[in-house]
């Protein structure tokens, strides 16, 4: 299980990646994160919605209402053009981070 402190800077990337797949809503996204990380990362509700709020304010995602099959109104999110650009940037940032940090990781300690 990964600690939320370590992954903090990458929540936006994770959410944008999932919204790139398809537009989605809160619980579906947190479920996908759990699945794709094989249960190693479970995003907290408050963390998820803080991230939504941040991304909305920066215009990287937009929200809309959608009736679900069971008639419950949910807020859905979709990625915007600038969100896509931001995602690209975050991907490159991760490449760099990985490269840098890897310099300080001793293979024999893994």
């Amino acid at each position: 299980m990964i600690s939320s402190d370590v992954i903090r800077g990458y929540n936006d990337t994770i959410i944008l990646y999932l919204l790139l797949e398809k537009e989605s809503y809160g619980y579906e996204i947190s479920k996908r994160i759990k699945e794709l990380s094989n249960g190693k990362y479970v995003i907290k509700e408050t963390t998820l919605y803080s991230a939504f709020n941040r991304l909305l304010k920066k215009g990287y995602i937009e929200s809309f209402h959608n009736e679900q099959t069971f008639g419950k109104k949910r807020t859905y999110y979709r990625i915007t053009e600038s969100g896509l650009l931001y995602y690209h940037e975050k991907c490159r940032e991760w490449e760099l981070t990985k490269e840098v940090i890897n310099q300080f990781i001793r293979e024999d300690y893994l």
Partner: protein
Amino acid sequence: MDTIINYVDNMFASLPKSTEMRQLRDELLANMEEKYHELKLAGKTDNEAIGIVISEFGNIDEIIEEFGISQEDVVTQPLLTEQEVDEYLQVSKKSGQRIGIGAVLCIFGSAMFVLLLGLFENGYMNGLSMETGMYIGVILLLLCVATAVGLFIYSGMKLDKYKFISLKGNFDLPIDLKSKIKTMKDAYQPTFTTIMIVGVVLIILSPAVLLTMITFNEHLANFGVFIMLAIVSVAVYLFVYFGNMYAAYDKLLKDNSQQTKEKDEDRVIGAVASIIWPLAVIFFLISGFVYGQWYINWIVFPITGLLFAMFSGAYSILVRKAE
């Protein structure tokens, strides 16, 4: 599921009651509900499912930070515990009794006064002069009023501890407690309505006793007044005691905006009460001692009572309309 709703509501209790926060709460709750049902379907027990859902809620401080809620907006109102609510209701009940008894004593004092005069006038107190009777009556009345004032002050002090509930409204209720109080109030409503009707009927019918007695025997007028005032005092006690209880439920359930209005309302009505009642007593004593109008001046009490009831009723309605 109730546990989860309570948990989320308690978490949001300190946040501003804005539409944004309301929507966020509903959204989070919808997610948690879905998660809860899926966990149950996956074979988890109720407790396990609740535990997992709550542990994955996170930290409300994240919301406060991210949504730019400043520290001033964070309402740190204490959540009332069930024990505090019970205590408040108990104290309200007791103080309702005390204030009610105080009001009864004020009326009863004047009633005793009228009764004594009647006894002397009709010569039942042989050997004692009319003047002596008057003095005894006044002493009795003053004793009653003094005891009443003592009771008023004592209940005021007892209620002082709960000023944050009754006046300021600086509190929040956990949602389960709120619905419990709401149920209690709803259960109380029919009793309250019946009692209020009984009180009004008593007051309207009380002069009938007097009129009947006068018809039979003119000398019985003073005893008629005594009985009439006794009936009025029963009605006043009912109004004060049950009204107080009802107000206590109301105050616990009020949301903040209404609370501020209610606060002013209480103050105005209280201020008027503390002027109008002593004025009535002064009027009663002066008209009696200076003008010798003892046979009719007791009427000031029922009239004051009715005017006061009309005033507080009309005032409450006007204040509510003005919202």
